[in-house]
C-alpha cells in the first residue's frame, strides 16, 4: 500500500513539474516578447510625440509667416503671450497658435506645454514731438541740457533706451540762447537724436494726416502721427517697448480762434482743425499700438495764483529785435488743452502730465517717470494645454528655444499622454 501511495505522489510531483515547465515556457518565451512588443509600441508613441513637437515648432503662423519656435522666442523676450506685429499683421497670440496645432495632432486634453520666460528687460524706443512755438523756449532749454544725459543714465544701467525728438516747424529764436530747431541745439548721441518733422513728412503725410500734412508749429496731433508712422531714426524694433511723447502748451494746430481776434479759448468754436489733428495722432497711435504720453507746459509764472507769464524771443518785427509777449491766449486755454491731452493719452493707453511751472524745470523728471513706467508687466512663463494628470503614463519632450535678440535660450517642456 505504501508503495502505491509513493507511486501516486511521484506522479503528482511529475504532473506539478510538467505544469511548472509549461508555465515557465509561457512566461519567459511569450511573456518576454509581449514586454518587448509593448516597449516597441511605446517607442513608436514616443517617436510620434517627438516628431509632433519638433514639427509644430517648425510650422509657420499664417499672418506673420514666422515659425512657432520664433514666435515663442519673441514671446519669451517680450514676456507676453501676445505679440503685436504692427498694423498690417496685428496681434498674434502664441498660446492659441500652439493650442490648435497640438489639439489637431494629439487631441484636446492630451498635452501640456510649459516654457519659462527669461528675465529680460526689452528696449524702450521713444518718439517725441515738441511744439516749436516761442512759448516752448523753456522746454527746449531743459531738453537740450538734460535729455541726452537722462538717456545715457538708462543705458549705463543696462537698459536699452533710445529717443528721437521731432521738432515741429517754426524755429523760434529764444532769448535764452536756444532756438526751437535741431541744428546746433542738441548733443546727438547714439541714443538720442533730434530731427525736424519736415524731414520725415514725405514718409507719412498722406498716410496720417489725411493729406493735410503738418500745418503749424503746434500741430502735434499730425506731428505725432507722422513720427509714429515714420518711426525713430534707428527705425522701430518689433520687439521693443514703444512710446510717443507730446510736449506742448496749446491745442494741436494752435489755440487761436481762427478768424476771430479775441484772445483766449473760444467756447463757441468747434475747433475742427484741432480735433482733426488730435484724431490723426490718436488713430496712428492706436493703429501701431503705441501709447502717447502728453506733457502740458503751464504758462503760469505761479501755478497757485495762475498769474500768466511772458515769453521772450527774437524777431526783427519787435523793437530792437526782442519780443516780449504775454501768454494770455495760452493761459486762457489751459483747461481745454488739458482736456485734449487727456483725451489723447487715455485713447491710446498713455498718460497726461502737467508741468509745475513755466520754467519747465521738471520736464525731464516727467520723461524719466514715463520711461520707468514703460517697463511692461512680464509673465513668468508660457503655459498651454491641459494640466498634466498624475495617474497617466506621460511622455516629456524638451525643446531648446532661442530667445529673440537676447542670445540666450529657454527650454520648452511638452508633456503628452494617451
Amino acid at each position, binding site marked *: 500500500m505504501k508503495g502505491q501511495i509513493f507511486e501516486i505522489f511521484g*506522479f503528482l510531483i511529475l504532473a506539478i513539474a510538467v505544469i511548472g515547465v509549461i508555465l515557465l515556457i509561457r512566461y519567459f*518565451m511569450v511573456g518576454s516578447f509581449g514586454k518587448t512588443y509593448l516597449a516597441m509600441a511605446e517607442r513608436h508613441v514616443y517617436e510620434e510625440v517627438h516628431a509632433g513637437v519638433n514639427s*509644430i515648432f517648425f510650422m509657420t503662423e499664417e499672418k506673420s509667416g514666422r515659425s512657432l519656435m520664433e514666435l515663442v522666442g519673441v514671446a519669451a523676450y517680450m514676456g507676453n503671450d501676445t505679440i503685436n506685429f504692427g498694423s498690417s499683421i496685428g496681434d498674434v497670440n502664441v498660446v492659441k497658435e500652439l493650442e490648435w496645432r497640438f489639439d489637431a495632432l494629439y487631441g484636446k486634453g492630451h498635452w501640456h506645454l510649459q516654457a519659462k520666460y527669461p528675465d529680460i528687460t526689452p528696449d524702450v524706443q521713444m518718439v517725441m514731438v515738441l511744439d516749436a512755438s516761442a512759448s516752448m523756449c523753456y522746454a527746449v532749454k531743459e531738453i537740450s541740457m538734460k535729455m541726452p544725459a537722462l538717456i545715457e543714465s538708462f543705458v549705463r544701467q543696462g537698459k536699452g533706451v533710445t529717443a528721437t525728438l521731432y521738432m515741429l516747424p517754426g524755429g523760434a529764436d529764444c532769448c535764452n540762447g536756444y532756438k526751437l530747431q535741431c541744428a546746433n541745439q542738441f548733443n546727438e548721441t547714439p541714443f538720442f537724436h533730434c530731427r525736424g518733422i519736415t524731414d520725415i513728412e514725405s514718409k507719412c503725410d498722406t498716410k496720417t494726416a489725411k493729406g493735410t500734412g503738418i500745418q503749424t508749429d503746434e500741430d502735434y496731433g499730425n506731428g505725432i502721427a507722422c513720427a509714429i508712422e515714420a518711426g525713430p531714426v534707428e527705425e522701430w524694433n518689433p520687439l521693443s517697448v514703444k512710446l510717443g511723447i507730446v510736449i506742448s502748451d496749446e491745442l494741436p494746430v494752435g489755440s487761436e480762434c481762427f478768424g476771430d481776434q479775441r484772445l483766449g479759448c473760444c467756447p463757441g468754436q468747434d475747433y475742427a482743425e484741432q480735433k482733426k489733428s488730435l484724431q490723426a495722432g490718436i488713430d496712428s497711435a492706436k493703429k501701431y499700438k503705441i501709447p502717447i504720453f502728453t506733457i502740458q507746459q503751464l504758462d503760469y509764472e505761479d501755478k497757485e495764483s495762475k498769474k500768466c507769464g511772458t515769453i521772450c524771443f527774437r524777431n526783427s518785427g519787435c523793437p530792437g529785435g526782442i519780443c516780449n509777449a504775454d501768454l494770455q491766449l495760452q493761459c486762457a486755454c489751459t483747461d481745454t488743452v488739458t482736456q485734449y491731452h487727456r483725451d489723447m493719452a487715455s485713447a491710446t493707453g498713455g498718460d497726461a502730465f502737467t508741468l509745475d511751472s513755466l520754467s519747465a524745470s521738471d520736464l525731464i523728471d516727467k520723461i524719466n517717470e514715463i520711461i520707468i513706467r514703460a517697463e511692461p508687466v512680464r509673465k513668468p512663463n508660457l503655459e498651454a494645454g491641459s494640466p498634466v494628470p498624475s495617474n497617466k503614463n506621460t511622455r516629456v519632450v524638451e525643446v531648446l528655444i532661442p530667445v529673440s535678440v537676447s542670445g540666450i535660450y529657454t527650454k520648452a517642456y511638452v508633456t503628452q499622454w494617451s
Partner: protein
Amino acid sequence: MKGQLSYIIKPITLVMIIVLLIVLYQSISESTVREKLAQNRLNAVSGTTDVLLVLANSYDCLAYRTGSESVYSNVVDVNKLDDFSKKYGAIEPECARSYEFGWRAKIYEVGKDGQPTGAIWAFGAQDFSIGDARLDYMNLSMPIAIRRSEKMISPGKMEVVLVEGDLEKIAGGIDWFCQVGKKGRMTSSSFSIYIHGTVDYDAGSLCLTPAGSKKKNCRQMLCQLEFEGLKSAGEHLLSLSYVEGKVVIK
C-alpha cells in the same frame, strides 16, 4: 489485493504521464507559434516606425534642407512629396525600402479639427499579400510639418500601412539581389521561401495568387526578371543570377 491494485495503478499512471507529456509538447509547440507571431508583430511595429522616421528625417527621402545646411527633422518638402507621388506610385522609394516588408505611405495636411484638408500625397506599393500569405499588417501614423515655402509650413500627418507576407518577402529578396547585382557586387545567390499560393511574373510585376483564391496580388519589380514562376504552394529554393541587367530565377 495489493498486487492487483498495483496492476491497475501503474497503467493509469503511465497513461497520465503520456497525457502530460503530450500536453507539454503541445504547449511548447503553441509557445513557439506564439513566439513567432509576437516576433512578426515586433518586426512590423519596429519596421513601420523606422519607415516613418526615415521618410520624415532623411534628406534622401522627404526631409527639407536649405542649401548645405542641416536637415529639418520632421519637416517635409512639398516639392519632394509631388516628386515621390509621381515617381513611386507603385513601389517604395529606395531611401526607405525594406526588403522584408511592403508599405504604402499617405501624407496629408490637417486642419484645426485634426481632419485631412487640401492635398493628399501617396506613394509606395499598391498591392499586398492577403489571406494566409499575409503574416502581419501594421498601420501607424506620425505628425509632420509640410513646407510649401519659407513662410508657409503647415501641420500634416504621415500614415504608413506596412504588410509582411509571402509576396513582400519574395519580391524583397529579388529586388535586393537586383540592387546588389546592378552595383556588380554579386552575380548569383539563392534563398528558400515558403509560399502560400502560386507565383508568376508578368510585365514587370511579380504576382502571387493565394491558395484557394483567384485574385492576384502584384508588386512592381526593380529589375526585369526571367522567371517561370512557382506553380505550387510550399517551400521553394530560388536560385538567382544577374545577367545583362536581368535577374534570372530558377
